[in-house]
């Protein structure tokens, strides 16, 4: 009798498991890749400040407090779309470090003058060196980094009020 029940319910259980798996697949975005650097420190680098040519930054700028690393460029329309919200976040006291990715310095400085500067520090990565080490595959990308300089999460695409509240803020406030 037990065996009968098993034969009866096993296909049902398998069917349900496959259904759940495929249903989740319907709403997942295949262009959103999980970063392999989650749980690892920000790679070593030496990059110029966007404003001061003789000022070099190193990976120790990521230590001290939890912060966001935002990869942006003036050639990226979505970056423009999210810029307003980054300004709001900076006003709320969220520390954001910018990584200007394969861009023109003049254009970038212009953009910041016009749209506001939410970044505590802005790195100028003309050749995409740090971006390559981070596994950046497009802009914008936003990394959540804890006070030890360990990457905790990568968000691909624009940051807006909705995904900040739903996805990012809980992780950000839980970081130490």
């Amino acid at each position: 009798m037990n065996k009968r029940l098993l034969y009866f319910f096993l296909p049902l259980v398998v069917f349900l498991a496959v259904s759940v798996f495929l249903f989740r697949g319907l709403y997942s975005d295949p262009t959103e890749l999980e970063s392999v650097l989650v749980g690892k420190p920000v790679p070593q680098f030496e990059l110029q400040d966007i404003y001061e040519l003789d000022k070099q930054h190193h990976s120790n700028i990521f230590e001290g407090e939890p912060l966001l690393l935002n990869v942006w460029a003036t050639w990226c329309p979505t970056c423009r779309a999210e810029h307003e919200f980054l300004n709001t976040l900076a006003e709320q006291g969220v520390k954001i470090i910018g990584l200007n990715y394969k861009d023109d310095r003049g254009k970038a400085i212009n953009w910041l003058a016009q749209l506001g500067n939410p970044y505590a520090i802005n790195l100028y990565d003309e050749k995409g060196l740090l971006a390559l080490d981070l596994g950046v595959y497009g802009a914008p990308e936003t990394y959540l980094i804890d006070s030890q300089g360990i990457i905790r999460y990568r968000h691909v695409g624009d940051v807006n009020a909705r995904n900040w509240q739903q996805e990012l803020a809980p992780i950000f406030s839980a970081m130490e």
Partner: protein
Amino acid sequence: MRVLVLLLGLISSAAFAAIDVYEFDSEQQEALFRELTQELRCPKCQNNNIADSNAGLAQDLREKTYQLVKQGNDKQQVLDYMVDRYGNFVRYDPPLTPAVLILWLSPLLVIVFGGVYLLGRNRNSSEKEPLVEEGERERLAKLIEQTERDKQ
């Protein structure tokens, strides 16, 4: 005809101008570069390898692959470099991880379990319902005996 040849010449030189030029120290290096750019997948334009794609990121990865090959790294070292940054997604020939193993083995498991189930069901049914039942068998034997006798 001559005009046509001239035109063709123009087209091909224009096409050449768009191709990146890489110089290698040896033929092995060039072959390795070709092999790697065929096997590495562009994370941005997801269904292209970095040899085929013209996306900015693919160009960067080609350039990086070139530098690494030129520096004398072997195939595994270049692949490791890319996987450390972009994950196994960046390879068109990913290594056998547990998740990949499930993908390969699950069809086999379905066939094996299905086969075992079918065999078990067949055996059960042949045990439960023999072709001729005990009482019937005796009657059959008698009938055959009688027909044989009638024939004689």
